C-alpha cells in the first residue's frame, strides 16, 4: 500500500494574513514539499497539470518531476492528472519516457480529462468531445509505448507513418497508468479494459458514490480477465488537516476551508467533513477514518492526500506532512496490512512491471483468448457477420 501527496499547485492568498506567494515561490515550494514528503517516509508525490491561473502546476508535469527526481532517491513520481484530452499523446509518450530514464523508472501517470472549459479550445479541442478524446488519445499512447514503426490514423491528430517514440521506454516497459475519473463510467471501463489502474479523486464526493465507481471498475477488470475483482489496482484521494488537539485543528483550518478555491464559500466545514473524506482533527481521527476506506473500497493500492492548497503556508504544509509521515502513515500501513490476502498486488513499481512483462503476464487489452470478454466479443462479431450476410442475401 502506497501513501503519498498530490498537489494542484494553486497560488492562493493566505486568508489569515493576506499574503500571496509569487509564482516562483510557489513553484520552489512545490519542490521543497516533494523532497520533504520523501524525507517523511511517504511513497508518492503527484502533480497536477494546469494551463490557467491561479494554478502553477506545470503545463508539462515531466518538467517538474524531472527536477524532483534529481533531488530524491526513492519517492515514486506521478501525476494528478496528465490531461489526455488536450495534450498530444505523442508528446506524452516521449516526455514521460524521457522522465522514466532520468528517474530510473520511478514514474507513473494518472490520466484525466480536465474540466476547465477554455483549456480545450486553447489546444484546438472541444470539451464536448472529452470522452472520445480520452478514448482515442489513450489508445494511441498505449500503442506508442508498445509498437515501433507505428502507422496510425484517428480523428483528433495528424496521422503517423512509421513513427517510433524517442526515447523508447526504460527497459522496453511503459510506465504504469492510472485512469482518473470522478463520475464517468466510461473511464472506469477504460481502466478495466486495459488492465490499468483506476484512481478516484473522491475529495469532493460521498463515499457511496466512490464505492459504486470502484465497484464498476473492479467487476469489469475481472470480466476482462486481468485478475479477480479484488486484485484490481485502485487509488483514492484524501484530504486532512491535523493537530493533536482536534478542536485546534478545526480552528486553524476553518479560514482556509471557508476561502478555498473550488469549495470555499459553499458548504460548511461540518457538512463537508461529514460527507467527504476531508478529516480535520487529531491524527487518531484521521487514522480511524482512512482505515475504514477498506470497508467500501476493498484492499487498495494507493492513497494520496491533498496537503498544500488553499493558501496554507509552506511551514504548515511541511508540519502536516511530518504528522502524516510520523504518526498517521505507519499506523495506516499496519491497519491495511492486517488480513490483506497475499495475492492482492501492491501498486506497480517499474521493477514489478518489468518482471511481469518478462513473465509474459502483461494484461491483454480487452481480454486474452479464453476470457469471458474475449468470447463475448467473438460472439458479437459473429452475430454482426450473420446479420450482414442475411441482409446481403
Amino acid at each position: 500500500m502506497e501513501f503519498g501527496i498530490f498537489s494542484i499547485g494553486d497560488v492562493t492568498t493566505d486568508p489569515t494574513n493576506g499574503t500571496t506567494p509569487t509564482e516562483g515561490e510557489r513553484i520552489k515550494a512545490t519542490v521543497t514539499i516533494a523532497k520533504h514528503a520523501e524525507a517523511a517516509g511517504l511513497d508518492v508525490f503527484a502533480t497536477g497539470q494546469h494551463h490557467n491561473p491561479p494554478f502553477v502546476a506545470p503545463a508539462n508535469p515531466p518538467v517538474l518531476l524531472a527536477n524532483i527526481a534529481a533531488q530524491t532517491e526513492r519517492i515514486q513520481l506521478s501525476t494528478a492528472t496528465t490531461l489526455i484530452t488536450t495534450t498530444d499523446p505523442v508528446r506524452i509518450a516521449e516526455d514521460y519516457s524521457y522522465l522514466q530514464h532520468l528517474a530510473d523508472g520511478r514514474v507513473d501517470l494518472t490520466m484525466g480529462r480536465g474540466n476547465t472549459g477554455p483549456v480545450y479550445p486553447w489546444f484546438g479541442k472541444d470539451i464536448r468531445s472529452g470522452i472520445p478524446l480520452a478514448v482515442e488519445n489513450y489508445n494511441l499512447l498505449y500503442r506508442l509505448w508498445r509498437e515501433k514503426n507505428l502507422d496510425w490514423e484517428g480523428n483528433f491528430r495528424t496521422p503517423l507513418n512509421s513513427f517510433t517514440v524517442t526515447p523508447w521506454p526504460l527497459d522496453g516497459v511503459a510506465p504504469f497508468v492510472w485512469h482518473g475519473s470522478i463520475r464517468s463510467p466510461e473511464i472506469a471501463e477504460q481502466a478495466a479494459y486495459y488492465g490499468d489502474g483506476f484512481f478516484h479523486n473522491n475529495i469532493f464526493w460521498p463515499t457511496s458514490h466512490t464505492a459504486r465507481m470502484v465497484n464498476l471498475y473492479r467487476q469489469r477488470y475481472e470480466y476482462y480477465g486481468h485478475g479477480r475483482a479484488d486484485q484490481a489496482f485502485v487509488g483514492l484521494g484524501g484530504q486532512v488537516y491535523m493537530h493533536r488537539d482536534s478542536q485546534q485543528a478545526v480552528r486553524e483550518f476553518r479560514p482556509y476551508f471557508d476561502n478555498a478555491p473550488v469549495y470555499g464559500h459553499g458548504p460548511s466545514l461540518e457538512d463537508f467533513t461529514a460527507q467527504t473524506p476531508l478529516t480535520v482533527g487529531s491524527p487518531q481521527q484521521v487514522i480511524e477514518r482512512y482505515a475504514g476506506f477498506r470497508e467500501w473500497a476493498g484492499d487498495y493500492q494507493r492513497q494520496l492526500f491533498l496537503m498544500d492548497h488553499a493558501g496554507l503556508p509552506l511551514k504548515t504544509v511541511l508540519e502536516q506532512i511530518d504528522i502524516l509521515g510520523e504518526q498517521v502513515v505507519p499506523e495506516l500501513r499496519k491497519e491495511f496490512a492486517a488480513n490483506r490476502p497475499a495475492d492482492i498486488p501492491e501498486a506497480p513499481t517499474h521493477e514489478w512491471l518489468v518482471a511481469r512483462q518478462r513473465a509474459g503476464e502483461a494484461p491483454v487489452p480487452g481480454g486474452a483468448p479464453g476470457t469471458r470478454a474475449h468470447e463475448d466479443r467473438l460472439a458479437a462479431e459473429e452475430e454482426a457477420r450473420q446479420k450482414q450476410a442475411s441482409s446481403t442475401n
Partner: protein
Amino acid sequence: MIEIVAVSTGLSEDSATSRLADRMLRSAEDALARRGEEATTTHINVRHLAKALVDLTVSGFPAPELDEAFAAVKRASAVITVAPVYKAAPAGIHTLFWQLVDDASLAGTPVLLGTTGGTPRHSLAAESTLRPMIAYLKGYALPTSVFAATDDWGSGEQAGLDRRITQAADELAELALALNPNAAGSSSDAAPGGAEDPAPEAAAGSAAVSPEPAADSDAPAAPGVPYAGPARESGRSAITPNGLGERAREERTRDEFDPDSVTPFSVLLGG
C-alpha cells in the same frame, strides 16, 4: 401505480405556493382515481434545499438530500411544479432547482405548471420561464397551467381556481396514463421497450394508432369530468407513442455504474 412528484417553492411556513401545490397534487390524485388508477405522491419543498442548491452551484458539492430530490424527479411518472413569482419571474431558487437536475430528467414525463403571485400581472411567468425549462428537460408541459393570485383565494374567485386546477389535473392524469400504459395493476400484456414496440418515429407527425391501453378497458368513464384528453377518447395520440413514459423512465433511472449494463469499451473505441 403512478408516482406523482410535486416540486414547489413555499417560502413561508403557510405559503400560498405550498397550498396551491398541495391542492394540485390532491386534484391529480383524484383525477387518477376517477380513472381507476392509484397514485403515490411525494412533495418536495425547494425551500429546504435552498442551501444545498447554492452549495452545488458555487462549489459542485452534491448534498445527499439534493441527490434524493433529483432521484425522486427521475423516478416520477408525473410532475407538478409550483413557484412563487417575483418581479414577473419565478423565484430564483425554484428555477435553480430545475437548472441543476440532469439533462433529460423529465424525458417522457408530463409536467403541470403552477405559479402564485400578488397580482394577475405575474400570470405569464409560468409560460415565459418555466415552460421552456421543462421543454429543455424533455418534459411534456401541459397546455393548462395554474396561476393563483391573491384574488383567487377570495371567496368570489375560488370556484374559477378550482375549475382550472381540476382541468389541469385531468390533463396530467390523461397524459400520465397514455405515457405509462403498464402503470395500472390490471394491465400486463403491453411490455415496455422491446423490439416489437412501434418505433417512436412511426408516431411522429401524424396521429399514429397506439395499441389499446389495457388501463382503459376497465377504467370508469369519469362522468362529469370537464376535460377528457385525446388519448382516452380515441385511443390515439399524436405525441405519445404507447409506453414512451415507461421507456424514458427506465432509461433515466438506469444505474450508469452497473457493471452488467455499462457500454463495453470496444464500442467506445470502435466509435
